């Protein structure tokens, strides 16, 4: 530590201010990142993290303030300048061409040539060298479309390293990963750090941040509010720095589960290409009950939602809503029968981004009051009800005539939640209801879910956030390869045990993962997060889930 203090910091930002007309996106930002460390930048969505990173990556120029790299003042007119200075950015959404191979993706835009021709052999050699040196296991010849999410992320990192980056910016890198992949990523980051690279890690997942970071800078409303030592700070303290209030806790109080069955799936099968994507699904949700579905993405959750919503035909079995067989009913009829739907991807299925808020209010309700009266739209009533939702669900917007695209993700989601909970639904399908929303919105959405549950709503909750899933469910079911496991009691399940069950009972990490846990990573006692403890927990807590899953495997 003391030796590092003498060296100039890898990155030092002083007094960075960036204004957009009428709005200050960043003001007086101060950030100092020591070389060969992982520096976490945390803050709510919309706090200004991305603006700051765009400044550092040369995507725009600050109005005030200075950037120093390795002690030298720099100005970046473009990302090319930033790359030349050794800065690389790994975006949250991968920017890879699916139909190209790994090495082609890596060299894209920086192709090595020998006498004017693309030198593929050299590229593959170089990439293999990088992969080996930093422990980023990936086959350069593999097609990107065949890779999993974790591997794609490694490709993104290799891409940046290939361009000579010494300072890596990772924007929400864990948002798309399951716990085991997060583990793996953190192993890679430790390797990178050991090789002398500097990493700026942007996140709002506090457990992860505390697990990986050497230092944390908190940003709030466009300015840096302080730094924290991850070994001493608690989640609660960090959360307070971020939002000025306590971190919301996903938890249900006393059980409100009734014995009135709202949704019943009987032996539902959904056919996919070549094989069934859902088979033999039996599921029951009662009024006042939240049933959480845990599973690694792509194991049939989307199809389960589609089958219940009538978006995908059911090959076998029946869907019953409050005792009524709705298997053959259209999506519209099911919605009219009282099914609310918070889709997994709000931009794809939940919103008309280029329509106003009140028009979005009508979506899914176009045949019902208050949106419609007969064949005509009831604009006045729809608008009035939109105002109600805006108020009741704390959608922060200057009015109901702005386009949905203008709202932040959290506020868009609150609008959707408000919409789907209006009209007294009997069943709510909540697919990743708090994905990509800030802490404040998350708390609000959880509150609404709790209230509706208390009022007798039946909820199907699907989430990749295991804490949310465990905390907000009355019953948990694990979905794996299109089959659903037996009910689990969330009180006896931990994120770790659930993670193991989701991957089919394998040990966390799996055989093909580099065994970095516990060696390169500093010990962090008392940590409540996912990382570093999965192995330990897997043996003890997994009894029910793991056991039953392996039993099912035998019968398969």
């Amino acid at each position, binding site marked *: 530590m003391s030796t590092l203090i003498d060296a100039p910091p890898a990155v030092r930002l002083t007094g960075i201010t960036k204004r957009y007309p009428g709005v200050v996106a960043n003001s007086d930002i101060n950030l100092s990142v020591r070389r060969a460390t992982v520096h976490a930048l945390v803050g709510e969505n919309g706090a200004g993290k991305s603006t700051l990173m765009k400044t550092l990556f040369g995507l725009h120029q600050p109005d005030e303030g200075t950037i120093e790299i390795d002690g030298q003042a720099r100005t970046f007119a473009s990302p090319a300048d930033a790359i030349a200075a050794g800065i690389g950015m790994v975006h949250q959404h991968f920017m890879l061409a699916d139909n190209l191979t790994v090495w082609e993706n890596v060299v894209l835009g920086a192709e090595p040539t020998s006498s004017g021709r693309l030198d593929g052999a050299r590229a593959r050699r170089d990439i293999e060298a990088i992969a080996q040196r930093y422990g980023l296991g990936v086959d350069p010849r593999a097609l990107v479309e065949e890779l999993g999410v974790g591997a794609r992320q490694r490709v993104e990192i290799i891409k940046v390293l290939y361009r000579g980056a010494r300072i890596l910016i990772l924007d929400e890198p864990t948002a798309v990963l399951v716990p085991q992949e997060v583990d793996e990523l953190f192993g890679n980051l430790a390797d990178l750090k050991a090789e002398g690279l500097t990493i700026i890690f942007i996140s709002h997942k506090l457990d992860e941040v505390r697990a990986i970071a050497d230092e944390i800078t908190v940003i709030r409303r466009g300015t840096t509010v302080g730094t924290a030592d991850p070994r001493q700070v608690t989640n609660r303290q960090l959360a307070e720095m971020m939002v000025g209030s306590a971190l919301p806790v996903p938890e249900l109080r006393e059980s409100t589960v009734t014995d009135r069955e709202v949704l019943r799936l009987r032996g539902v099968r959904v056919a996919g290409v070549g094989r069934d994507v859902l088979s033999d699904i039996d599921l029951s949700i009662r009024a006042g009950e939240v049933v959480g579905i845990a599973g690694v993405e792509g194991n049939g959750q989307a199809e389960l939602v589609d089958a219940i919503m009538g978006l995908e035909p059911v090959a076998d079995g029946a869907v019953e809503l409050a005792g009524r067989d709705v298997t053959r009913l259209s999506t519209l009829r*099911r919605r009219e029968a009282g099914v609310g739907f918070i889709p997994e991807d709000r931009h794809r299925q939940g919103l*008309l981004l280029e329509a106003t808020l009140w028009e979005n209010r009508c979506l899914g309700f176009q045949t019902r009051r208050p949106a419609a009266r007969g064949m005509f739209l009831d604009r006045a009533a729809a608008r009035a009800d939109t105002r109600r939702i805006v108020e009741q669900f704390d959608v922060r917007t200057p009015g109901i005539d702005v386009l949905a695209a203008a709202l932040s993700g959290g506020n868009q989601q609150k609008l959707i939640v408000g919409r789907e909970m209006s009209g007294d639904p009997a069943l709510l399908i909540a697919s990743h209801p708090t994905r990509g929303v800030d802490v404040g919105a998350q708390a609000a959405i959880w509150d609404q879910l709790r209230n509706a549950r208390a009022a007798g709503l039946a909820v199907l909750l699907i989430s990749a956030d295991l804490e949310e899933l465990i905390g907000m469910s009355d019953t948990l079911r694990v979905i794996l390869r299109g089959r659903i496991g037996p009910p689990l009691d969330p009180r006896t399940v931990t994120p770790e045990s659930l993670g193991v069950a989701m991957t089919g009972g394998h040990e966390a990490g799996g055989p093909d993962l580099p065994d970095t846990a516990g060696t390169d990573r500093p010990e962090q006692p008392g940590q409540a997060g996912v990382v570093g403890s999965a192995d330990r927990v897997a043996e003890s807590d997994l009894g029910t889930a793991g056991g039953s899953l392996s039993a099912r495997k035998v019968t398969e």
Partner: protein
Amino acid sequence: MKALSGRRVLLGAAGPVGALIFSAIVSAIILVLTRHNPFEAFGAMGQAFSRPRVLVGTVNQVSSYYLAAVAVAIGFKMNLLNIGVDGQYRLAAMLSAALAGASFMQGIPSVVRILMTIVAAMLIGAAWAGIAVWLKISRGVSEVISTIMLNAIATAVIAYLLSPGRLAVQQGNNLGTRPITDGGMVPTIPIPKSITPLYTLLLLALLVGVLYAFLLSRTVFGFKIKATGLNPAAAVASGISVKRMAVAGMLLSGAVAGLVGMPELLNGPSHQYSINFPSGFAFTGIAIALLGRNHPVGMAFAALLWSALDSSANALQGVGVPNQLVVIMQGTIVLSVVVAYEIVRRYRVVLEQRDVARALAQSRKEPVAA
């Protein structure tokens, strides 16, 4: 919010106005390069409109262009590219002209006759469009391909039917349906000092425009069209049957397309569908729908602009400038307007996001609610 909507109008106008200025500059450059005097050329274009005849001609032309644009826009609104408006209106005009000109229609009261003609045209247009949408729904054929092919088929069908002994009579070297007698025609309004009378079916275009506006903004059906166009996945998730909407939208588009030929047929001087019947309105309609952003009022202005440019072609030639300049101007306007709209659209989203951010920043000065 008032300021916001004022700005929206301003931004909406910025695209076409900018494109218009840009295309004028491009045209001026072309004129200079081809050794013509741009001031003389633009002057002649302007002067043309001092003649009542040209003004009336411009207004008359608007009806067909506007109807074509609405037909196209209904499809565009839901990402259905009805390239077949051309075939739909020609087939509709031909068959309904044959009906209107038929001898058994003579005894029928004028109003009924005219209504029959118009309704027949709408049904034929819808039916022809229906083939394309049927292919799309049942066979997954892209409506772009099928409507283009149907245009060619319509041409062949018309050529077959439009021959002596079938639906046509030959007059000199012209070949057309039996001329519609006066009772089957819609009266026009004579305008002083103009050899061309004012076409009263402008009112039909106006009516269609009002209905189109009402449909889009006030009805559930219009909402469904909009939702389907903006985000098909969200529409499906909201219980809107995208297939059913495609069928309804395409039939509606075809029905309006059937009306495109009506002003020319029932108000025009030739009283028949002949081999000289105007063609190409549909492609103009596409350009106008694009220019007017599928908006009922925007398209009206765009149709007027387009028609005015058309009308100035003769005057341009009068001073020795090739009339192709008009086509160049129209083409430049369309291309630059597409670019301009995209820029304006992005700028508007950014502006709104800033508005929201600003409004929130203000609200945050009050104690922050947890």
